[in-house]
């Protein structure tokens, strides 16, 4: 063998066994500590200051909360809307998941595209779009329906559709909850060992019987998880009730809390008490889920790559497909068309002026001609830059922290950070908004109305999603790949830079897009923290909605939706391309 003759240990023969200060460790633990502080400090500081340091006693705050006008009605409204929409969304989401995973009505792209709906057309755009479609006087769908009715000699002046009522609100809520339910159920069906169903079929059970007694019980935890996700999301939802609830005076908890925070002086004590009520509901839900999961055995996940038998729907195949397609029509295509139409009109009226279609609104917004246009342009630019910076920061920080927590699991800071990054998922965004106002807006930080407070709040509210996606990407890389790097003598910094990071890129690209869209499309936190001088998209859209300027609103919504789509699809394409190179 030729290597014999060479000086075999090529590198210095004395190992540096001594503990050098390790750069990565220092960087990662600093970042972990900073993020933990950023998440915990505002919540903790606000809570302590409201309940213990201010003049008001806890009793005073509780009394004020109970005496809050119509508070009982607000709670009742919240319960009805959330309860109703979660139930409806769970039923629709489970049906769509079963159809696309287990029946021959499945269309490949449906599976891939359905969870993206809220990213392609954000709820606030959807809510506005549906209002433009169904408003009693000038709603486009109403115009069409009334037009058809007039051919039959029926003369109707308003309606028949109306978004400003219980049905309208619950309908739009449900539309945006469906993907949250769909995702875990579809994943569970995909991972479910097909031999369970095959055993049932070969025992002579009909497909219906198999579904009822084998499939459904096996995916129960996924249905529960989906419903819980939907519940948490619905509780924090602000844009839909803010757009639709004002006219019929159907007020929900989030709207009341935001209103309490925007009056002067801000009723922070009452707002925080109501916010904690939401936290209690969420934590009860999480606790129940844990209990149910730990009590029963759901170990039914088999190996992947097994193709399950598909149920032939026969003559129900096409109707099922139409139902699936109409979900896209209702959530994305129709509202988006409505918005685009309005963006090319000078104003919204009960007659569509086909002759006056033009792009004036776009030149106004993109060129910043009028005051309205300038505001809209500023909002777009602010949102896009905040989301680009925020998403990049969030993903890079998460990647470093995830690599750190995975290797130093025994380190208490690692555990605390891990728990903290999950916390904003259990705390409503409204509460995080309150906490940021309470702790960072005033002295000593005085961040009120700055883009910095928005950026920090965006980082916190998207931290659970960012760390979840990055964590998944990290575990897909495989532990042995980084271990092989360590036993090759590479430091943690080198291992992260040369092995973990490059291999995580496809997952990180998807994570970046998710965080970008969440930050750019945020409404709840933005409404509480943005200011007229520093507008962002979510804030500006609500502002235009409240104070008039619908064509400008439609323009900014169109531009924003197109940009979101481009970012999401671009990141998906990039991540798929990168993943293919690796094979």
């Amino acid at each position: 063998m030729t290597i014999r003759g060479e000086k075999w240990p090529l590198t210095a023969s004395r190992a540096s066994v001594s503990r050098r200060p390790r750069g990565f460790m220092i960087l990662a633990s600093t970042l972990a500590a900073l993020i933990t502080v950023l998440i915990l400090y505002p919540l903790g500081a606000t809570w302590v200051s409201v309940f213990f340091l201010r003049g008001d006693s806890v009793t005073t705050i509780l009394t004020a909360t109970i005496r809050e006008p119509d508070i009982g009605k607000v709670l009742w409204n919240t319960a009805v809307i959330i309860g109703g929409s979660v139930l409806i969304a769970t039923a629709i989401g489970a049906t769509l998941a079963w159809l696309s995973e287990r029946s021959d009505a499945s269309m490949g792209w449906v599976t891939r595209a359905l969870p993206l709906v809220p990213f392609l057309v954000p709820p606030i755009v959807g809510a506005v779009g549906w209002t433009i479609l169904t408003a009693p006087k000038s709603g486009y769908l109403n115009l069409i329906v009334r037009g058809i009715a007039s051919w039959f000699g029926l003369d109707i002046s308003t309606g028949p559709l109306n978004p400003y009522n219980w049905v309208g609100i619950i309908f739009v809520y449900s539309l945006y909850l469906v993907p949250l339910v769909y995702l875990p159920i579809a994943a569970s069906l995909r991972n479910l060992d097909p031999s369970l169903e095959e055993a049932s079929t070969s025992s002579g059970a009909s497909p219906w019987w198999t579904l009822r007694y084998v499939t459904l019980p096996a995916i129960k935890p996924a249905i529960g998880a989906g419903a819980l996700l939907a519940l948490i999301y619905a509780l924090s939802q602000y844009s839909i009730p803010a757009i639709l609830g004002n006219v019929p005076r159907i007020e929900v908890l989030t709207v009341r809390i935001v209103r309490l925070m925007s009056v002067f002086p801000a009723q922070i004590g009452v707002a925080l008490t109501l916010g904690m009520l939401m936290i209690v509901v969420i934590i009860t839900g999480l606790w129940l889920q844990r209990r149910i999961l730990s009590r029963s055995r759901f170990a039914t996940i088999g190996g992947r790559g097994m193709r399950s038998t598909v149920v032939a729907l026969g003559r129900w195949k096409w109707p099922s497909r139409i139902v699936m397609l109409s979900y896209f029509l209702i959530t994305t295509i129709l509202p988006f068309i409505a918005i685009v139409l309005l963006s090319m009109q000078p104003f919204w009226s009960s007659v569509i002026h086909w002759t006056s279609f033009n792009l004036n609104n776009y030149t106004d917004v993109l060129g910043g001609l009028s005051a309205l246009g300038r505001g809209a342009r500023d909002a777009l630019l602010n949102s896009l830059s905040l989301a680009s910076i925020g998403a990049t920061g969030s993903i890079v920080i998460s990647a470093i922290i995830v690599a750190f927590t995975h290797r130093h699991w025994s380190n208490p800071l690692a555990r605390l950070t891990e728990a903290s990054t999950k916390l904003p998922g259990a705390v409503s965004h409204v509460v995080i908004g309150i906490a940021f106002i309470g702790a960072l807006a005033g002295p000593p930080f005085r961040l009120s109305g700055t883009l910095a407070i928005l950026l920090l709040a965006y980082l916190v509210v998207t931290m659970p999603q960012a760390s979840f996606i990055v964590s998944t990407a990290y575990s897909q890389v495989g532990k042995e790949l980084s271990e092989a790097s360590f036993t090759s003598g590479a430091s943690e910094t080198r291992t992260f830079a040369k092995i973990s990071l490059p291999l995580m890129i496809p997952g990180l690209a998807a994570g970046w897009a998710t965080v970008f869209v969440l930050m750019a499309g945020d409404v709840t936190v933005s409404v509480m923290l943005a200011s007229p001088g520093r507008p962002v998209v979510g804030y500006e859209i609500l502002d235009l909605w409240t104070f008039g300027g619908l064509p400008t609103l439609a323009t900014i919504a169109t531009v924003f939706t197109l940009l979101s789509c481009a970012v999401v699809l671009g990141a998906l394409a990039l991540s798929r391309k990168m993943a293919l190179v690796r094979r």
Partner: protein
Amino acid sequence: MARTQSDLKRRPDSTEDGSSQIVPSISIENLVKHFRRENGTEVRAVDDISIDVPLGEFLVLLGPSGCGKTTLLRCIAGLEKPTSGRIATQRGVMFDSGKRRNVPPEARRIGMVFQSYALWPHMTVFDNVAYPLRARRAPKAGIHSRVTSTLDVLGIGELAHQYPGQVSGGQQQRVALARALVAGEDTVLFDEPLSNVDAQVRDELRIEIRGMQRELGFTAVYVTHDREEAMGLATRIAVIERGRVAQIGTPKAIYSQPSSLHVARTIGSTTEMGGTVKGWEGDHAVVNTKLGLIRVSTSESVSPGDNVLLVTRPVDWQLDFNDSPLVNQWRAVIKAGAFLGTRNEYIVAVEDALIHHVWHHGEILPQGSQVWISIPPAAIQILGDSDEKAKA
């Protein structure tokens, strides 16, 4: 067993002169590793193991899956933090629970070959193999020639610019091997490296690994559950059972003098019989079994009345068609047989007693054939009775 050996030696870190022949390459003392399961129960994956591995030894850790052998290996590499104990190499103390010392894997200078190869899919074969040198900041000029010569030695020189995903499983294993060897570490750990390649490549690579280890003189610690692999590679085998060293010794010693039924079964197929010692006949112990009296030549001091277990190897049984004057011979009927290529394997019945795993060469015999079977007294191992049998 391993304890007594290590006690005789001096502590590795107390010998600064380093000239002593008996300085072990790896010294493991009272190593314990506990895991806590999700449900709170504690698993003792490594339960007080002490082993010294001399320089240049090829030590194989043999045992069934879940016996703790891989955990022990990962503790040596530094990928797992032991609960307590001490690990030292020639380069110093790597882990010492008493002194709260735990050198990270990147500073231990121990090469490792992983079961899953763990090749980095985004780097070429060349870059994969060059990585340990670059990580240790070797002079740039030396890297190219070193990597090329290592790849050539392993016969994969022409693959240098391919990606791991583009080469076969056996070639991937060679790349992993090259990566572990390229930096010239004096210790290389192997975690079941051949379990994912097909049988033919496995035999080939086994011979190469062995040759390479003798040639380069590194100390190897190799984990496997495959007894043939263990015997083909090892200078010493440590049979691991439930986190402990059941027996350690040369392959020959472990095969012919297993210290327990478990070791006997781990190292090779067995045919076992329980019985009671009846007495001595010259230097043969006479044991009463279900087959009748069996004569065993043994150095074990058994006395009449002892319950014992007789362990034999299937290959030692003789199968004849005629009665010949042999000790330990019985008339038997073939109950079932299987043709296995290099041999036939039978279950035979001596009256009511069944004997499993009797190997024979030649034509396969039909069920019901009348034969004579025998076992030489020297081929029988006596093990004290015991809970071993109860376990069996």
